[in-house]
Structure formats: C-alpha cells, structure tokens
C-alpha cells in the first residue's frame, strides 16, 4: 500500500488481489535454444486442458449456434444445420432487444452507483482517524467476502413481504405508506431497486478500498498547494485528485462493467428474472433459453452475441493491455 502503484500494479491487484509489488525485469532474456522445449513441457498439461475445456467448447458453441440443437438432441444426438437462422430469429426477437437494453441500462446504473459511492467512501476514509478507518474497512470486508448466493438469500429475507425488516422500516417512515406486505420481487421497479442495492452493497468495498489506496499514493504536495491557493474541496477533488488517480479509476470502472454486465446469481435468486421476464438481463435471458426451454441453438447464438457486445464494451481495456504487453 505504500510506494506508488503504477497502472500496472493496480491492474495486477485487480486480477491478482494480493501479489507483492512487481519488479520489472532488467532485460528480456535472449531466446535460448532449449527454452521452447522446457516451456512446452511445463505448459503442456495446462495447454491441453485449456484446449479441451475452453477452446473446444467455444468452438462447439459457435457450431451449435448455427444448428437447431434442442432438448431432443441431448438424448438422440440429432440436430440440423440451420445456418444463420438462429441469429436472425434472435435479432428479430423483441424480448432479446429488451433484455439487451435492460442489461446495458442496469449495468450503467450499477457501475455509476458503485463507482460514485466507492469514490465517496474512499474520500471519507481519508478524513477518518485510524480506529474509524479500521472499522469501515472491516465492515466492508464482510460485505465483500460474503458469497453472493448467501447475500441473495439474506436479501430475500430482508425484503420479505410480511416479515422483512426493510419493509417494516420503510413503513415506519410513513412517506412510502404501508409497505409491510409489499412483494419486491413481483414488481419490476422494486425488484430492480432491490437487486441494485444488493449488487452495490457487494461492489462498493472493492472499489472504495482500491481508490483509497490510490489516493494515498497520490502526490500530496499538489493537493496541499491547491488548498493553499484557496481551491475549494470539490474542485480539488475533481480537478486535481481525480486526474491523478484516473488510471485506477479507469480500471475499476472497466472491471465493474464486465462484472455488472455478467451479474447472474443475484437476479436469478431474487426475482428469477420476473415478473414476466421484466427483470431478466441478457445473462438470465440466455440461461432461460438454453436451460429452461432447452432451445440450446438459440441460447448459443445469444451467448455469441453477448461475447461480441462485451468485447466491444471492454475493447479499450484489452487494447491498453495489449499495448502495455511488453512484460505480459
């Protein structure tokens, strides 16, 4: 946490949450004759597994997306090639577009919510004394560590119609009226709010802690100089600190986009995508197509489209990684 994390260290931290500070190697070693052979022996088993369990399945996904593979095919092994029909069906399907739009909007709401709250909390942490800061961190680690299946179950209990404590508390507030028997999962807006709160609850700790670490590493003299020049706190934050921690902020945001776009468990367990599919994001929509109605061909096509959309959304991140790929 001390030392100045470069973009790379922070990136590393996101993917490898607890690795020691990296030391850049002085020089790339020259390619030696037997390097390739040894590397092949060491990497061999991993390579075979990744080919068998990832590459082949992905190829197979592309293949099933042009077939009419369905529940019957699972038993008989029979299916027909249908060309791009699955894709045209999906792209003509209004529910697909609604699910996609919903996913993009919900992802935006989740990313904005968690990043802004995370920024606020990280700023708050810089102004606390040690005891309070320790308490805040500890509390956040609980929220962070909870498996999302468990927190989804807890959420359902918190928002339970009849006996949910949140329903009871909101009813005490009077402004919302009597909400004791409100069923959150049966109302599109309420279900989305409920899931939004759940995901935010789990996402903020990671963002806040990463940004706090970045803030500590930022050059303090700049901030002090700005303060002496009489800049307001708001301005110091947005015009001086934010540009300084921008690399970290960017990485946190992009990772949030990936994670939030793929949120599945929380939605599946809280609302099952209901009522009437109105809270189903693209992940839930795909799962339902492939594993509830067992229209696997179409499910595959949607998966392929999702991967493409996700690649477009995260293209920047990947391209930056490729650019800094010297020591990949």
């Amino acid at each position, binding site marked *: 946490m001390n030392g100045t994390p470069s973009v790379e260290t922070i990136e590393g931290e996101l993917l490898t949450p607890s690795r020691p500070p990296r030391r850049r190697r002085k020089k790339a070693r020259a390619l030696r004759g037997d390097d390739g052979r040894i*590397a092949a022996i060491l*990497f061999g088993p991993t390579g075979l597994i990744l080919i068998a369990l990832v590459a082949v399945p992905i190829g197979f996904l592309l293949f099933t997306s042009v077939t009419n*593979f369905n529940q019957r095919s699972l038993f008989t092994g029979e299916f027909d090639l249908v060309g791009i029909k699955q894709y045209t069906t999906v792209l003509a399907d209004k529910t697909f577009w609604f699910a996609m739009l919903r996913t993009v909007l919900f992802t935006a709401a989740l990313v904005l919510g968690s990043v802004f709250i995370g920024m606020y909390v990280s700023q708050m942490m810089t102004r606390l004394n040690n005891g309070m800061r320790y308490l805040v961190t500890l509390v956040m680690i609980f929220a962070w560590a*909870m498996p999302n299946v468990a927190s989804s179950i807890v959420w359902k209990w918190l928002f339970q119609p009849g*006996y949910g404590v949140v329903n009871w508390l909101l009813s005490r507030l009077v402004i919302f009226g009597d909400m004791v028997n409100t069923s959150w999962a049966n109302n599109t807006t309420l279900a989305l709010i409920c899931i939004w709160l759940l995901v935010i609850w789990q996402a903020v700790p990671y963002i806040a*802690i990463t940004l*706090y670490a970045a803030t500590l590493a930022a050059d303090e003299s700049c901030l002090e100089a700005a303060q002496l020049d009489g800049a307001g706190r708001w301005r110091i934050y947005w015009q001086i600190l934010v540009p300084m921690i921008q690399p970290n902020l960017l990485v946190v945001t992009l990772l949030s986009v990936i994670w939030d776009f793929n949120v599945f468990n929380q939605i599946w367990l809280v609302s099952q995508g209901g009522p009437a599919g109105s809270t189903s994001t693209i992940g839930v929509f795909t799962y339902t197509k*492939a594993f509830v109605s067992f229209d696997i061909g179409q499910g595959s096509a949607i998966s392929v489209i999702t991967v493409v959309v996700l690649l477009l959304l995260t293209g920047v991140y990947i391209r930056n990684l490729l650019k800094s790929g010297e020591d990949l």
Partner: protein
Amino acid sequence: MATTIERRTPMRADTTNNDGGAMKAKRRIRWDRVRSSIAAVVFCIIWFFPVYWMTITAFKPRNEVMTATPVFIPTHWSLQNFRTAMFQTQFLVNLMNSVIVTTISIVVSVMLAFLACAALTLYRFKGRRSIMVTILAIQMLPGTALLIPQFIVFNQFGLLNTYMGLILAYIASVLPFSIWNMRGFFLAIPVDIFESARVEGASEWQILRLITFPLVAPGIISTSVFAFIAAWNDYLTAFTFMKDQSKYTLPVWLASFSTPTGTDFGGQMAASVLFSLPVVIFFMIIQGNMVKGITEGAVK
C-alpha cells in the same frame, strides 16, 4: 499618521487573513473529521446491517424469527436453527460434495498453474504473449458461454451429475485465473538467481523445485485461497450440472434450502452463516495484510 495606518492596514489585514486562514483550515479539518465520522458511522450501520441481521436471525429461537415487530436485539439465543439446517437437510452430504469437488479442482489447478506460470514467466518462447492474452480473455467470458457447450459435451460423455464433470468445469474456470494470480509472484523473483544457479550447474528441474517453488510459496497459498473461494461459491455450474439433491454442492443446497416444515427463514439464515463462514474466515486471513496496510498507510 493616517497614511501610515493606511499603509499598514493592508499588510496587517494580510497577516490576520493568513492566521485566520490557517485557523480556518484547522477548524475545517476538525469539522471535516467530525462530519466524516458521522458519515462513516451511518455507512457502517447500513453496510453491516445485512450481516448482522443474518447472524442474529440465525441465532434467534424459532418463534422470534417471524414477528410483526422485528426484534433488533435478541434476548434469547438458540442453536435450534443450526440444528435444523445441519441435520434436517442434506447439509452433511452436500458439504462433503463441496469439499471433494473444491479440493480436487484447486489442487489440480494450482499445480498446473505453477508449472504453466514457470513456463510463461521464466522462459521466452514464441506465442507467449498471445497465450497470456488468451488466458486473460477467457476470464471475461460470460458464464453461459462456456456452460452451454460444456453441458452438451459432458452430457455426451455421461459427465453430468458427476463429481468429475463439475471438477473439470471448475478447472477450466479456476486455472486461467490461477495463472494470472500467480504470475506476479514469479515476476518478482530476481532473474540473477536463476542465472547463478545455472552457472553452478543446477538442472532446470532442480531450479524449479528448489529455488522457484519456495520463493513463490506465498503466491501458491494466496492463489489457493482465491481458487477455493471461486470454486466454493459457484452456483451456476453446479446448479446446471447436478440434478440429484444428493449431488448438490453447498451453494445449490443454500439456494434451494427448505426444511420439512416449509419456508424457514431462521434455518435459511443459519444455512447462510454455515456456508459463508469458511469464505469469510479465509478472506479475513488473506486480506488482513491489506487492512493493516490501509491503517498503517494512514499514519504517515
């Protein structure tokens, strides 16, 4: 006189202004701290409440779980809910499933990741970079992209509803992540160590076993913990692959939790505690350093 005063006034005004500024700044800092502390307390209450509510619900006696007015500070404590969760459901069987599947997939993944990382960081060869990029890209795939084809293939090979199928699926998702996680530890080793070992005539295998392994041991431990959390928490794959209740892992058990007496929130919360506890403990252990770092960083 008047002129001197006039001349001095701006100067004095300046100094008082500066003093006032410093005092103002000090007061502002103190005020900042008070205000932030209040915000922090509110934040802690909101963020901790779900965990608190889960825990106290789990320890409440059955008749105090569902009450018209929630009981915020329970006066009676009971282990009834834990007994229900553990002995009136498939908990023990499902726990065993989780332990078996998680352990095997972690051991295999971490071992392979160690070898693969050695290959990718200590040796130079063609295609190294593209392998790294591919491994990174795999982690961005949405869950269903691998789930659908794996389901079909595993169905063909009779691997659905078996430990083997689930273990293979977990290796596929945990291995790439483990490689990324371990990579930093390998890169932190100074290259000179290897060079001098080679000069001394050590074989590549000896270097790997006697030098690299001990040096990256902390990385292996941290990777194992993260791999454990990933496999232990997985719901989607286990839910899709395992059809018999006796084959469920704990997340599926928790999500479909029901006792002979119907919906039982006390039991569900006890089940959530039982399931989350190992993860929270492991998480605390590995993130303990982080918390320490954060609190110490503040002292500077």
